């Protein structure tokens, strides 16, 4: 498929924050994997909602409430379609972290209630990987502790790819659930979903996909990927904070007990017991992120208009430019150096200079990157380091910004009195 390339200059005009400067230098925002910026279209959609249609949804008969409910459910339909799903398969969450915790907790509760499909106990295995974000690791450590199941980890190869041979050995008849990131937030590599899903489904294991870093950057169709559950966050997707999506196969969502309990997810409540609505409402207790859902729908429409094939082409182009540039610099060690499909993201170590200091130096040049362990301590430990510097791009990132970044990185070691770069 050949989509028209992104017109980045035109896109940038939609993002007010990109006009900011840092210490007198124009901002180069290369921290989109942490959180993306929002275009006018998203900001305006939320603003229009708040100033003209704000009301509690699913709860009132008055006109404002009906307008709000329509806007909220229209948003669900738009966002569901964006990931290939039906409306009933999209549960609103406050983000990927809540989504992953929801799955873990609901499974634990189902297991405690003896629901066979979700039963977990000693001898059963939950499989994740060495490369996961803490959000896709800690809930499974918890689930293992609470059920007695064992947590296992697919290893990562030196070049950052998942070790599929090891995966074939680890995923087996004891595996009840496999979870992994579609795109890693440190390695930037697009993981082979089809292979992993096939391995897991061969053994009837459930597959959870952490799609936090994929949904923003590539065309994603959850039903086509045949994963059982998937999560993503709005704020990495040009959308507002505090809203995200949980996708689930209909029959699984229907079989899972609810997680958060409260208003708007019940049919009948007595002092002693409660009965619950079908999915998705069953999982949406309390007042929902309504204006934020409306904003996220505007973000999905914005990306649809750009065309996700074009977005991925742009990301792949920037990713290659980042990699090529960094590979050419002395004293730089890349994490995830594989020639594999990837987005515009590179995490690296600068020999002799701590990532904090690298980040500070880049900041003085107006370049915003992230430093630290990026919520992936085990992966950093796997590579024998505690922290890295990460640059990540999005639809508004230009070649010139990547080049400015590369030039600045080339100067870092010199500034801190080490060889291999010009002095500042």
């Amino acid at each position, binding site marked *: 498929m050949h989509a028209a390339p992104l017109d980045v200059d035109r896109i940038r005009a939609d993002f007010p924050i990109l006009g900011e400067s840092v210490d007198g230098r124009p901002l180069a925002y290369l921290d989109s994997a942490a959180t993306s910026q929002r275009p006018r279209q998203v900001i305006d959609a939320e603003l229009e909602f708040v100033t003209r249609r704000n009301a509690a949804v699913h709860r009132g008969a008055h006109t404002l409430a009906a307008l709000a409910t*329509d806007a909220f459910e229209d948003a669900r339909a738009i966002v569901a379609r964006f990931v290939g799903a039906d409306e009933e398969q999209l549960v609103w969450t406050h983000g990927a972290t809540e989504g992953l915790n929801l799955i873990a907790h609901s499974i634990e509760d189902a297991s405690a209630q003896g629901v066979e499909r979700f039963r977990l106990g000693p001898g059963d295995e939950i499989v994740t990987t060495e490369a996961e974000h803490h959000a896709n690791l800690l809930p499974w450590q918890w689930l293992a502790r609470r059920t007695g199941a064992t947590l296992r980890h697919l290893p990562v190869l030196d070049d950052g790819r998942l070790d599929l041979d090891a995966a074939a050995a680890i995923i087996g008849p004891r595996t009840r659930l496999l979870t992994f990131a579609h795109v890693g937030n440190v390695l930037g590599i697009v993981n082979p979903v089809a292979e992993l899903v096939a391995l897991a489904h061969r053994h009837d294991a459930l597959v959870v996909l952490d799609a936090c870093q994929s949904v923003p950057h590539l065309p994603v169709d959850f039903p086509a990927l045949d994963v059982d559950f998937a999560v993503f966050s709005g704020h990495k997707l040009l959308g507002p904070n505090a809203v995200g999506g949980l996708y689930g196969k209909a029959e699984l969502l229907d079989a899972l007990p609810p997680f958060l309990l409260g208003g708007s997810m019940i049919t*009948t409540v007595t002092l002693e017991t409660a009965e619950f609505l079908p999915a998705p409402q069953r999982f949406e207790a309390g007042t929902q992120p309504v204006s934020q859902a409306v904003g996220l729908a505007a973000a999905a429409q914005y990306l649809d208009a750009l065309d996700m094939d074009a977005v991925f082409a742009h990301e792949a182009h920037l990713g290659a430019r980042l990699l090529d540039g960094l590979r050419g610099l002395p004293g730089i060690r890349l994490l995830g150096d594989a020639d594999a499909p990837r987005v515009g993201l590179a995490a690296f170590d600068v020999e002799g200079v701590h990532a904090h200091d690298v980040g500070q130096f880049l900041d003085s040049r107006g370049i915003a990157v992230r430093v630290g362990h990026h919520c992936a301590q085990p992966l950093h430990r796997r590579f024998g380091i505690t922290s890295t510097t990460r640059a990540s791009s999005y639809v508004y990132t230009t070649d010139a910004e990547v080049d400015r970044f590369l030039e600045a990185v080339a100067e870092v070691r010199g500034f801190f009195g080490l060889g291999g770069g010009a002095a500042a």
Partner: protein
Amino acid sequence: MNGLESLYQELMLDHSKNPVGFGLPEGDPAAGEGQSHQLNPVCGDEITLRLGVTDGKIDGLHWEGHGCVVSQASASMLADLVEEDAPSPDELAELIAKFREALRSRGAIPLDAEVFGDAAALSGVSKFSARVKCAMLGWVAAEDALRQATQAE
């Protein structure tokens, strides 16, 4: 006709006050009958509806419930329609599907009085999206009861 009067037409108020088919027969549903209980969790409205199929025609549609004018009138109009036209199971299923489509159309698709009888007065509901569930309650019960009745056949 302002918004309120397009919703609460005279005919609707009449049906809600003198509902057709109100009152369930004693005892459990017989073979070839289906019965369904539907609840609107937002307001607690409930309808229990029973119907049977005799000689390929819907027969003996009865219901009971409580709730707003819209939900009660709508169930009554459905009972009236079935009594008048004695549709086949397939015809009833199609009527329900068309009714749902019209009600969800946000005012775009009107209900044809030739086809829907008194229930055509419910067209106005489709502009009030919060009330669509009320109007659907009896019809969803009928859909479910019909499924049971025809499965059992």
